[in-house]
């Protein structure tokens, strides 16, 4: 049974300080002057030393996915004939403060890394199992968000849900692990998190059971042939993009010692499908856009029963060519409707 509490800002600081002794607390944080444009700030997930560092006013540029799936991760070391699995650099338990869309985003990663093909990815699992979700209540949309259309605006997958107010924090605690510190420092209170119920941006998902073959080569994708520059920012900023490739590297003069890493890859990037001997697929950027779009709102659902995209809108936030994924989904649905008529 979940219990709810109200805490003053000071009381919550005490909770934060107490938790910090046992957990690394990670949340969206503002880095002044590090934004993409001059005189703008970068908001990204980082360890927080105080709750005052938690950024609530703006959406983070990157998702928290690197907590479970870092951009670059050593899989194992090799020395001639032996391989040794790379250990995690630390044994920290992590509390991550994140919004419902990102909780749902990590759920989409869980399905890929823990369920697909009935294979559990050990590197993902060991990072995932040490995460504890503290959900930031999210009642209002940021720019480009369309989580409601993607049915990813709500979640009950959290250890605690927090409402940050001017004079304190209201909290619903779902995990016994964290009950004591909230109970000792706060007072019992009725609180249930609320969720954003309408975004300014809405998408209409395609209502087809099977994608008709002609839509794969529809003119609608041609726009992206010239507009997309295959920089892959949409892939890297996406909380649910999970593709990777492996890279071997070796140390200095050594002929035998080195390591194999996995690094993020993306379906918009050149070389994603290149095979030895020169065969490749999806040379055109429009085809890559089609591939990504279908994956996010169609293929994944066929495989896992839920859409991959969570509507966080980060791909639209970061695209240097102002490509809008939400617009693309709407254009696709409109085209499918036209075709059906």
């Amino acid at each position, binding site marked *: 049974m979940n219990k709810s509490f109200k805490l003053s800002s000071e009381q919550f600081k005490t909770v934060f300080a107490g938790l910090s002794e046992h957990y690394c607390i990670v949340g969206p944080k503002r880095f002044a002057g590090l934004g993409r444009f001059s005189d703008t700030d970068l908001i990204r997930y980082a360890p927080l030393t105080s709750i005052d560092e938690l950024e609530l006013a703006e959406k983070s540029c990157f998702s928290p996915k690197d907590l479970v799936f870092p951009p670059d991760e050593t899989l194992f070391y*090799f020395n001639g004939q032996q391989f040794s*699995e790379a250990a995690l650099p630390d044994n920290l338990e992590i509390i991550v403060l994140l919004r419902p869309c990102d909780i749902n985003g990590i759920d989409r990663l869980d399905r890929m890394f823990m369920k*697909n093909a009935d294979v559990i990815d050990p590197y993902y699992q060991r990072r995932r199992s040490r995460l504890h979700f503290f959900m930031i209540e999210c009642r209002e949309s940021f720019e480009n968000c369309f989580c409601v259309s993607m049915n990813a605006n709500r979640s009950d997958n959290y250890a605690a849900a927090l409402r940050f107010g001017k004079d304190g924090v209201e909290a619903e605690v779902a995990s016994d692990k964290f009950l004591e510190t909230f109970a000792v420092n706060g007072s019992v209170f009725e609180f249930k998190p609320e969720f954003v119920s309408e975004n300014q941006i809405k998408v209409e998902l395609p209502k087809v059971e099977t994608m008709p073959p002609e839509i794969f080569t529809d003119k609608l994708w041609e726009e992206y042939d010239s507009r997309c520059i295959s920089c892959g920012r949409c892939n890297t900023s996406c909380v649910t993009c999970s*593709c990777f*490739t*492996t*890279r*071997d590297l070796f140390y200095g003069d050594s002929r035998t010692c080195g390591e194999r890493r*996995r690094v993020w890859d993306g379906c918009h990037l050149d070389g994603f*499908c290149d095979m030895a001997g020169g065969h490749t697929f999806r040379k055109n950027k429009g085809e890559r856009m089609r591939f990504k779009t279908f994956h996010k709102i169609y293929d994944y659902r066929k495989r896992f029963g839920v859409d991959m995209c969570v509507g966080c809108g980060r791909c639209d936030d970061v695209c240097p060519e102002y490509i809008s994924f939400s617009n693309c989904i709407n254009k696709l649905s409109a085209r499918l409707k036209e075709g059906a008529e």
Partner: protein
Amino acid sequence: MSAQTTANPYLPFVTKIIAVKAETESEFTLTVQAVCSITPGQFFQVSLPRIGEAPISVSNYGSDWIQFTIRAVGKLTGAIQNLKTGENLFIRGPYGTGFPVDRFKNSRLVIVAGGSGVAPVRPLVDQVVNGQLPVKSLDLIAGFKNRASIIFTDDLVQWQQKSNLTLTIDKQEEGWDGATGLVTEHIRKLRFDTFDDLQVIVVGPPVMMKFATAEFRMLQVPAERIWVSFERLMSCGLGKCGHCKIDYTYVCVDGPVLNYSYAANLID
């Protein structure tokens, strides 16, 4: 398997190369010592630490050995070509869905393979030829670009004795007294009175598979009787890295062998 095999599916294990055989100027067959349970059509992630890893089909296997037939066209395959007997090759697998061997039992089996596509069907052909897999008949069409690119020459001689083998090269060359022309031309010559016990396998480069399967469909062969094997870039073989995804299919785990009734609808 080697003692190095652990629960971590990304860790390769070491195998010793016990034979190296040049097939053509750029293709070669390595035999490594390893004990694995394999189905024809499956593949391994083969690697050389420091250079990289790639999916390679099993081109034959026995109780304690596995063969890989590799074309040296890239960084990794080029480096593997330099390996000698006694050196190590690192592998993990086997991965993927192989051929549905049981369904081929007592069938009239037609296998069409082009170029290096002969490698993944070789264990299956061997099973038929040595009687391990009984079939009513085996028609085998093996197509190569030219004489110099023919692989498995010794096997082809043996196969010829126990199957209806058509060994064809794309264009006539001096001194060649065998068949010429693309595999499609030879598929066209096949006659089917009934499809009841027919099973067809098509493996080769993407363009060849496209036209070869189309040819069988034109001969009214039901799509369910045709089996294909796909080749895609793969970094994991475990359904994680995303490179081999087509629609909602992951070639590494749902394939590489797929029934054509399913594969025909996949658009990259």
